[in-house]
Each structure stands twice: as structure tokens, then as C-alpha cells.
């Protein structure tokens, strides 16, 4: 189990799958919130590096929280996520991201993030979210 890094507090996860893979931590306010996640052995693949599925799950968690923040907690669904896997990360590494709002329209939110470990980009993700009830 991972302890919170200094200045971070544990994110209150509610989705069963996120609780299953967590914990995650955050610091800062809406728009500049930074997330941190420590890679554990059960997040890795046979080569001993963090599994792409875990990184994509982290992207869904953190960019989804950011969408929730910028829409003042509107209900939304993920329409598309695109990931580029730049570099590997290993057990014990901290993965960090500050989600960036690309654009918000009435019905859509475009959100992206650079996921880093030890100051280097591990994965970049861009995503499209649909706000429910908006045409």
C-alpha cells in the first residue's frame, strides 16, 4: 500500500474498478490539480514495467475527474481516448499528471494530459467527453 506524497491527499475513489487498482493522490485546485499514482507490482506486466492498461485506467480516472471539475460535476461519458506510449515506467515510480482542458463546448469536453515519471513523459493522452443531456 502506498502512502500519500508530501502535499498530496488521497483521492476519494468511488468506482469499484478504480478502488481495485488505486490508490491515487492529488494536490492543488481545479484547473491546476496534479495527480500522483505509485506503480506497484500488481500494476506491472511480465517485463516488470507498468501495464498499458493500468496507465490508460489512470488516464480515464484523472482526466475524468478533471472533466467533472470543469463542468461543475455534470454527468458525462467518455467518447474517445487516444494514448501514445512514449516510455516505460517501473515498480515504485510515481506517475504524475496535470490534466489540461483543451476546449469545452455546450455538449463536449476535450481534455488531455502528459503522464510523467521521474520528469519524463511516459504517456500522452487526449480524450473527448460528452455531457449527458446536451445535444
Amino acid at each position, binding site marked *: 500500500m502506498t502512502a500519500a506524497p508530501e502535499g498530496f491527499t488521497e483521492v476519494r475513489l*468511488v*468506482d*469499484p*474498478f*478504480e478502488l*481495485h*487498482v488505486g490508490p491515487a493522490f492529488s494536490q492543488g485546485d481545479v484547473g491546476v490539480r496534479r495527480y500522483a499514482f505509485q506503480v506497484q*507490482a*500488481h*500494476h*506491472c*506486466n*511480465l*517485463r516488470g514495467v*507498468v*501495464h*498499458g*492498461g*493500468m496507465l*490508460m*485506467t*489512470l*488516464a*480515464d*480516472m484523472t482526466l475524468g475527474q478533471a472533466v467533472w471539475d470543469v463542468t461543475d460535476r455534470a*454527468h458525462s*461519458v*467518455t*467518447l*474517445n*481516448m*487516444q*494514448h*501514445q*506510449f512514449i516510455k*516505460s515506467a517501473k515498480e515504485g515510480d510515481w506517475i504524475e499528471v496535470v490534466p489540461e482542458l483543451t476546449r469545452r463546448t455546450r455538449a463536449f469536453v476535450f481534455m488531455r494530459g502528459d503522464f510523467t515519471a521521474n520528469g519524463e513523459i511516459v504517456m500522452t493522452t487526449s480524450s473527448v467527453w460528452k455531457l449527458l443531456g446536451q445535444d
Partner: protein
Amino acid sequence: MSVEASQLPANNLPADAENISLRGFNLHAGPFYRLPDDGAVRRFAFIALDKHMNSVGTVHGGLLMTFADIAMSRTSRLATDAKSCSTISLSCDFVGAGKLGDLIDIRVHVTRRTRTLVFMSSEMKAGERVLMSAQGMWKITP
């Protein structure tokens, strides 16, 4: 309704389904299964358990992307006989929602294989309902 791995409705999975979740995150997120090929199409499946869900009662997007990554990575190795292949990029369209207890399957198609890369697309369904279409490329690790 609650579904645990030990209560899997065995008749939902074909008898020849092979458990491919042996270690690491694949095991933590699984179990996932390989199904017999359909010609050149590689097929995989899993049953949506409680741990796979989100708080609004649908299968979590991160788990669906994990399943796509595992199925397409395995296909890249099957297509190349490489020991290891690395995901370079993956794009996932979330077309529909999966539900607790669904038998979810994926069909993976190799679009092109070069000396160093495998290009693939996949379609994930629960019965006739499409949940995700994904495409991506994998690097063959020498």
C-alpha cells in the same frame, strides 16, 4: 446482483476458452480468456464482474481499454512469433456500455505487419451490442 469469479456462469464461456490472466496486472484486472480463432481473426472474452464496474453500474472504461490492450498485444505476438511487443498507440471509441455479468468478447484483426510494427483494429461486443472499436500499433521488440 453480485457476480464473483467463483460464480462465473460456466456455460457463458466456451469449454475451450483458455485463461490468459496468469500474472501481474493481467491477473489483477482479469480473468481474461482466449477463444478459438475465427480464420485470421483472434478472439478473446471475459465476464464483467463487480470489480470491473464504475459507480453508475456500467463496465469501467479503463477496464475495457485494458482488455483491448491485452487482446491486441497477444494478437501482435501471435502474428509475429515475437516474444514481446510494445503498445505504441491505441485509440478507443466508446460506442456502448457494458453491464454486470455480460460476456464481453473482442475480435482483433491485423491490418498490416511490417518488419518492426503490427497495425491492428478490434471490435468489442456484448452479444450483438458494440461496446468499443479500437485501433492501434505495436512495436515488435527484437
